């Protein structure tokens, strides 16, 4: 498999951390000079998880970037999912844990990045077992959480009470497990789960998913789990998903049961480029569009997307084109985040206890 080589090589820096990194996210900046990121660490020596706010100095005197820890907060257990909301005056983090709790954090980036737990939901019966995914709604007043226990919960934090109230949207009683979730609009969101199944939910029509994308569409040959979903704000009808066996596909709600396979397990029709054969841990729309392609993209075409995988690939996929490989690490890339303000910058967490910062030029 030949990959298209990037025209201009990007700069990559790998920064060893001496702790395992469960998740990493950019924070929306408060000033033009400082760049901040939130990192969920897990220290195996002491069995202690932590969420740290780090200041990223991308280029101190021409050498490699430095990460300076600003503050730290200790969650009750390891972080299973970490999300940020961008369009808020102060960055807001939603962290879900393996012990089944959700924490809303609002780091104060102006005054040394102190993290305070704004609110917590951890009561018995919120989720049984780990929360597998959480997503913050843009604007940051609500988040939705899902778990393999089949529960879909809506947590709203408009008030200033430290104990949040949550509303159970659905409980599948474990008959269906959900592994990924993403907001599409203030009232709609999508979830993903086993057998590459996707569900579309609308709060205005309660009682279950409004629409289901049938799982097992690849006829049992290679089935898998959806690990990550993304929905572009301008294409709310298309739900992008990445999962097992290098599979990246899009579900267009207008064409109900026909997936648009971008990589991995094909439906057997056209030979589809195989970027990776292992788990695709995260997918995100890549807003760093190359100039030649602007205007070329019609509304039926899937926008460029970035993926990271277990076999160490970070790549950009465009429909109908050779994938562009940005990184090929000897170890897994477990998560990444594209900086919304500077989309050329990508931060990745690597399996071998390090963070990679990639700057595309």
């Amino acid at each position, binding site marked *: 498999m030949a990959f298209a080589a990037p025209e201009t090589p990007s700069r990559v820096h790998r920064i060893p951390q001496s702790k395992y990194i469960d998740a990493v996210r950019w924070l929306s900046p408060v000033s033009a000079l400082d760049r901040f990121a939130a990192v969920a660490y897990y220290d195996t020596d002491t069995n202690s998880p932590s969420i740290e706010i780090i200041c990223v100095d991308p280029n101190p005197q021409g050498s490699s970037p430095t990460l300076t820890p600003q503050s730290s907060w200790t969650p009750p257990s390891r972080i299973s999912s970490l999300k940020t909301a961008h369009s808020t005056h102060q960055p807001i983090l939603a962290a879900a844990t393996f012990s089944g709790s959700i924490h809303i954090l609002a780091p104060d980036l102006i005054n040394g990045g102190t993290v305070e737990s704004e609110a917590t939901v951890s009561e018995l019966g919120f989720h049984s077992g780990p929360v597998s995914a959480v997503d913050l709604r843009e604007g940051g007043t609500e988040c939705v959480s899902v778990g393999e226990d089949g529960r879909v919960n809506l947590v709203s934090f408009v008030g200033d009470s430290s104990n949040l109230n949550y509303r159970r949207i659905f409980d599948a009683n474990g008959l*269906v497990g959900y592994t990924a979730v993403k907001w599409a609009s203030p009232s709609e969101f999508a979830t993903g789960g086993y057998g590459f199944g996707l569900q579309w939910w609308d709060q205005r029509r309660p009682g279950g*998913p409004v629409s289901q994308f049938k799982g097992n569409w690849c006829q049992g040959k290679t089935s898998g789990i959806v690990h990550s979903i993304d929905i572009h704000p301008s294409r709310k009808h298309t739900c992008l998903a990445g999962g097992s066996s290098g599979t990246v596909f899009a579900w267009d709600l207008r064409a109900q049961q026909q997936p648009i396979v971008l990589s991995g397990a094909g439906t057997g029709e056209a030979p589809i480029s195989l970027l990776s054969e292992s788990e695709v841990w995260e997918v995100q729309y890549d807003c760093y569009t190359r100039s030649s392609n602007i205007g070329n993209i019609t509304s039926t075409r899937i926008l460029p997307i970035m993926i990271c995988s277990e076999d160490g690939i970070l790549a950009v996929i465009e429909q109908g084109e050779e994938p562009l490989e940005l990184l090929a690490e000897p*170890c897994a890339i477990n998560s990444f985040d594209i900086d919304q303000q500077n989309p050329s910058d990508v931060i990745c967490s690597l399996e071998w*206890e390090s963070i990679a910062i990639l700057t595309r030029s």
Partner: protein
Amino acid sequence: MGLMVLLIRVSGGDLLDGGVHVDDDADLDTRWCCEVGAAVYPFHHGLKSPISRLSISWSRGNSLRVSVFAAPSSVESVEDDAGGTVVEVKLGGGDGEISDAHWRRIAYGSVSPFALLQSRKNAISSLSKMSMNSSPYDADWWDYIMEYSKDINALLGSQKPASVPVIDDPKSVIVKGEEPTNLKAAWELLEMFYAEKPSHLCLPERLVDWLADFDSLFSGTHPTVHSKLVDFQKELVNLQVVEDNPKYWEVMSSALAVGWLDIVVKMLRLHGSYQLDQLSNRETENGLVEAVAVLISKMPRMRLDQEAGKLGECFKAKPDFVKAREKWRAQINKLDSSAFWFQCAHLQTREGLRSMLQIMLGNANSLCSATCHWIELYISHLLYIRPLTVGLESMYSLAQKSIQLKPMASAHRLMGLIIGILGENTEVVLAECLKGFGPWMVVHAIELLTAGSDHAEMLLLEERPNLGGINIEELHRLVYAQVLSSHPLTWQIAPIYLISCMKHGMVLLQILLSKQPVQHNQLLLKSIEICRLYELHSITANIMKIAGVHHWKHGRKGSGVFWLQQARDEYRLNRIAQQLFDSVGKTISDESFKQWEGLIQLLGSDSKTAGGLEFLHKYRDFKKSLQHVFDGKTTDAARRAVESLISLMKNPSTPQRFYLPLLYDSLKLLNWKDRPLLNVSQTNLLLTKLQDLSLARLRPDFIESELPPQALNSVRLALATNLGRAILEE
């Protein structure tokens, strides 16, 4: 109170021999512990009541799990006092020089160079098998070995000084770089002797460079030239007239003896006679100082390349070097016997400079008194007495002589390693690597040891019956893989080392993968990914089965079914199907149907992977068509409902306990107003099934469905009526 001391006796082979001593008073004679080779690990158990029982087992990695049980309090039961506690005690303090996290970083980084070298080795050996006469040790081979060694060396830290000051401070004689580590020093030794192409002509000079980089490592246990320099550096700031201080001359002689020429020349230039106001009346003295400085900086050296800014003149060919050296020595002799010395009024300068000349002339006594430990003495001999020493044998005998002159007060791990290397004793080298630097070092050093030496290769690759038929190389790889496997973060790189073990690697890899936790999908999928890479399909299936049962047990039915389906485990799917049907019978009402929808979709229509669960799929279809009948009441919909009813009743996978509920649900179809929907044979089939059911109900394990008591009768009546109507119609 609450403090306990765990005493572990460790036998020679680093094995716990079970002798665990527990002392509640923490009043131990530590000297006794050291004598018997025991380690003491105090820990807090925090229990107030006396201890009645203790249980010790291995935890993950190097940790012991100590369970402490308190004696049941007989008098009064205190609510807040726990009845026992479990404490993890981590054994071994690790390497003081390198933290655990740093070791992991080294372990991660060495994976790629090791794997690359193995694949190149395999390629070469398969190539040499094809063409019998070509030697595997060709030019490329040495390039590969060198590349490997450099990659590993780079992981152990860089030797570059942290920052070069813009303005050179004349009084700073030693530049502080990154703290050197013993590990890097040891690797550079191995690289020098085993990885570089066998050109031992330049080895003496390589050793000089090595000592210059790493002499500070010996400072902890031995007096060194480096520590002398560091001490003098502190004094230097406060000295007005350096040449009056005897230490100035002593330190310079020492530095000269071990060949740190630029430091010596820099220090000589600090001499007071260089100062402008004194230059006129100390002209001869200054001339002598400068003459020595020039001679030092012109010293001929037998080496391939010279770093910029380093002093000495380089010669690559032996005859040129010998000629230059003779000329240089003649110049020294001439200076030594010149008349200018009588005109030099400053006594310390005269004596100091002349003793430096003696060092350059190779006076054994001067060298011995100028150096601090045997390696320094050895280096000085290589520099000034026998610069043309070639071959390990003569180097080894010279080292023995140096040790006799300066016996080791205490052993140092690097010294042991040097002796092993010079003595060409592979066993000693391996033992020193293992003892001093641990299993990582041994595994990666073996690649260098076997690179060029047939003898070492024979020794390390020979299969040994006392090791269970494996060779020493495999033994050490297995040991290292075990170390990696014991840590939750490094276990994923253990497979790289295990698959390079021909005999036991694969089996141990299978065991390792089978033992990984399956609770969380991410970890589970990482294990499955490794199975996929090494094509261990049966292990994949096993892991999936374990995961499936785990999720099932914890109420995540969908996840459980998915994993069992992936494992194609029909047996377990059928078993859990029986359990699922129990809840189906109760909950599959119209409003809870959405919960089931997702699971049924997951099951798909492929009956092979669904096991007995395909019934659910059909049942859902039947329920749906029945729903249509109730909504629309069209005869077409009713016909379709009958068809799915008949296919359900015919299907052997339909559990008997569902016969009656199915028929009871279909009462409306059986009593269809317009005309009978079932023909004679269909009705007979349903009647037979009803007969089967009444027989089945006699069995003790039959589960009765929750239906009104008159259900059976109404179904019977409906069937009989339908039969009658059907016969009439036919």
